[in-house]
């Protein structure tokens, strides 16, 4: 029996209304004193005179969702958080659009700063997501996290 993990992926860019909605939902959680949000945005990088116009994300989805789950468990174990939400784009995300949304909440601020950075670094290094940078002339190169 395979365990089925929550799907962290969303098709396309993450709209700002989606983020607003996630924030608004936490107004009923009255023990929360601090939220910290990380947003990854696609940059129009220049490579050899060509400008990136979009990133096309693919993933080893089953493994990625399992890794997202493991990162979540490890983070709750390490930090005193009230909530944590992660969303990552799949498919095409244009420059200027949001491709990663990480949202942590806690009674106190110290916890959210450390927890958010921990989660983002873990996602970058442990979750099998792949990005094809599409240039304006439709050529491409494969993105590598630094």
């Amino acid at each position: 029996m395979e365990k089925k993990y929550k799907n962290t992926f969303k098709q396309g860019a993450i709209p700002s209304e989606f983020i607003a909605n996630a924030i608004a939902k936490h107004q009923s959680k009255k023990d929360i004193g601090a939220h910290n949000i990380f947003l990854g945005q696609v940059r129009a990088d220049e490579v050899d005179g060509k400008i990136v116009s979009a990133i096309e994300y693919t993933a080893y989805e089953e493994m990625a969702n399992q890794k997202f789950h493991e990162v979540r468990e490890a983070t709750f174990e390490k930090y005193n958080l009230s909530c944590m939400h992660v969303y990552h784009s799949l498919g095409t995300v244009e420059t200027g659009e949001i491709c990663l949304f990480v949202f942590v909440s806690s009674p106190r601020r110290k916890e959210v700063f450390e927890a958010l950075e921990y989660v983002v670094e873990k996602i970058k290094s442990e979750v099998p997501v792949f990005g094809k940078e599409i240039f304006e002339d439709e050529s491409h190169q494969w993105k590598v996290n630094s």
Partner: protein
Amino acid sequence: MKVEIKYFGMLAEITGCSTERFTVVDLKMAGLKKELLKKYPDFANTDFRMAQNKELVTDTTLLTGKEIAVLPPFAGG
């Protein structure tokens, strides 16, 4: 042993396919990697890693045949 291998990102671009059946004699991951590099010399240009059953593995890991994947560098976020 027959194994099915998944390819992702630039590796799938090199192979031209996202899954492929492979017959391996050496049951260590290193052996499989060697055969992959023989078939796809361009794999050598990237820092790829192997996963088995959704966990990253090393050269000395034994093949169980369960869900083997070849992963290019991660680029999430």
